């Protein structure tokens, strides 16, 4: 019997989009999956994210890359359990111009 799953959408901006070549991706994860689990799943789907976007040792975002939840808050705690239907944004830390 398969584990229960939830669908999570990740939207890519800036360098993350350049690397993946897509604007967003929908992944199926276990219901208890955390932000860190999502980063692992993303790295499995797009290995080139490892390094410039995802830190494959701590399984957090790389320096100057932010993980944002629903466009409202930056994820600081990667153990945060993501709710079904959540939209996660991978973007550059913004500055100036």
């Amino acid at each position: 019997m398969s584990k229960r799953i939830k669908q999570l959408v990740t939207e890519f901006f800036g360098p993350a989009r350049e690397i993946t070549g897509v604007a967003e991706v929908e992944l199926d994860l276990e219901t208890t999956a955390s932000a860190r689990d999502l980063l692992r799943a993303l790295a499995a789907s797009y290995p080139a994210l490892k390094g410039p976007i995802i830190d494959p040792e701590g399984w957090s975002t790389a320096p100057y890359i932010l993980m944002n939840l629903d466009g409202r808050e930056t994820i600081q705690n990667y153990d945060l359990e993501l709710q079904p239907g959540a939209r996660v944004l991978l973007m550059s830390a913004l500055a100036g111009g």
Partner: protein
Amino acid sequence: MNGYTGKALIIDLTERKSEEIELSQSMLRAYLGGSGLAVRLLYDHLAPGVDPLEPGNVIVFACGVFAGTIVPAAAKHSVATKSPLTGMLGDAMAGSFFSHTLKRAGYDAVVILGRADTPVYVFIDDHTVYFRDARALWGQECFATEEAIREELGDEAVRVSAIGTAGENLVRFACIGNDRGRQAGRTGPGAVMGSKNLKAIAVRGSGAVAVADNDAVYQTSCDLITQAQGPATGKYREPGTVGNVLTLNRLGVLPVRNFQRTALDEAEGISGETLHRRHHEKTVACAACPIACEQVMKVAEGSHAGARVSVDYETLFALGPCCDVDDLPAVIRAAELCDTLGMDTLSTGVTLAWAMEAAERGLLPPDDGVDLRFGNADAMVAMILKIARREGLGEILAEGSRLAAQEVGKDSDYFAIHSKGLELPGYDPRGMKTYALGLAVGTRGGCHNRSLAYEPDLKGKVDRFKAEKGRGQIAMAQEDVAVLLDSLGICKFMRGCFTDLHEEGARLYSQATGWDVSAQELVEAGERISNLKKMFNVREGWTRELDSLPPRLMQEPIPDGPGKGVSLPPAELELLVSDYYEARGWTAEGEVAPATQDRLGLSGQTA
């Protein structure tokens, strides 16, 4: 003197005379260079209360501390004057070879007084100053003026800061261009030059800028240059700051249609990525900059074919989403016109957005042949020319959004998007409360760059939708980092390359000057300069009501996007502003308290 030249040049246009003054070590250590030095010299040479466009106004150019050396991305120069747009501190910066050259000519700063009776340009040829006839240059564009002066002087190494027709015609947000594409952009210093009949400053410098310990400066610089190829500057290198459009749009803080909305329904077409893909021609650097963020765009075909200019985020925002224009070639053409005519793209775009809204509401008189309304790119381009020439409606719009709204009346100031008269940059402050505070209290008016207060909001260090005590301290610390960078003359895009800006900055400063300067001394210098800027404004009649934001943003909640429903009522801004005054050690009315002046060595220093 090492690092510095230890000299400033005082130029009197009325008398057509110049003299050198010495800058002491204690003065340079207290105000560093760039913005700090420029404001200090302005404060000392300007009599309070003069009309910014009268001969009594003073305009100061000051080099960053490290200009003329290998220290990377540290060649900024500052321009300080009393702003014709805000009536307060005019405070602009440009990245440049101009400062490199001025420093090699032997000056850390140039102070310009008076008014020439006929158009002139000043040629600083090392230690000789010439007042040259500029009547034939009057009416020429910024870039053309640079080229014409190099041609006339017969030397490609001459660097020029020049105004275009907008500055000559006293457009209140006229900028000063240099190095064919860099601008001291904001608060209207170009109009002050125009009012002085000063078309340009040309510099030839054949000297050297000595540093105390060249090996050390070289090694530290090489480390910074390596850092500048890393992730800290990635977004500046490609696609450049224009990449902000899609992200800010998604976060619901991209101002659209004169701040009536915070997101576009369809942002891809006007995004930095699309701009880059379709129009990018060449990446260019400022002097000694290893980042190279200047992205030159070109239009290959269509009615704007041949338009070529570098485009950054604020320009794209102001001439794109803020005017609801999604025609990239028209944005490039509009930006090119602003640069050649010599006006600030940000104030131009946001003032035009005000005009489009006013026109749609039937508040503006019709203008021959120009149908101003949101999304009409042709009207935008046509009106930019009219503003520079002060023709038709351009006569009103050349005054900037604040004065134009006063002139038009009918409550049109409700949607004039400025603070202290300076049009707001491309972030909606309702969804970024620390940034809202930074904008409101900024001494040059609504500016993200001087406040840096957007950073904690967008990095998620704080809840960006919440106004609370403690933000005053954060906004103050951010502002003091900004002012420190502006005074050292280091580009803000380098800030991620420092692990500890104060420690590493002090080390670099000591290596260059040979003076033993501590991190704490730089912290205090930042605070001192921020306070001096405020004292300048107080002396010019600043009152607490000026530390505010446009009525629209304090009365309407965010209409759409992730921040939908969030508002920024006046009481909330009041709370933030009071918290900031307290953090600064200012009085409840927001003036620099005597004890704070004493602590920072600023007391008793009125001109």
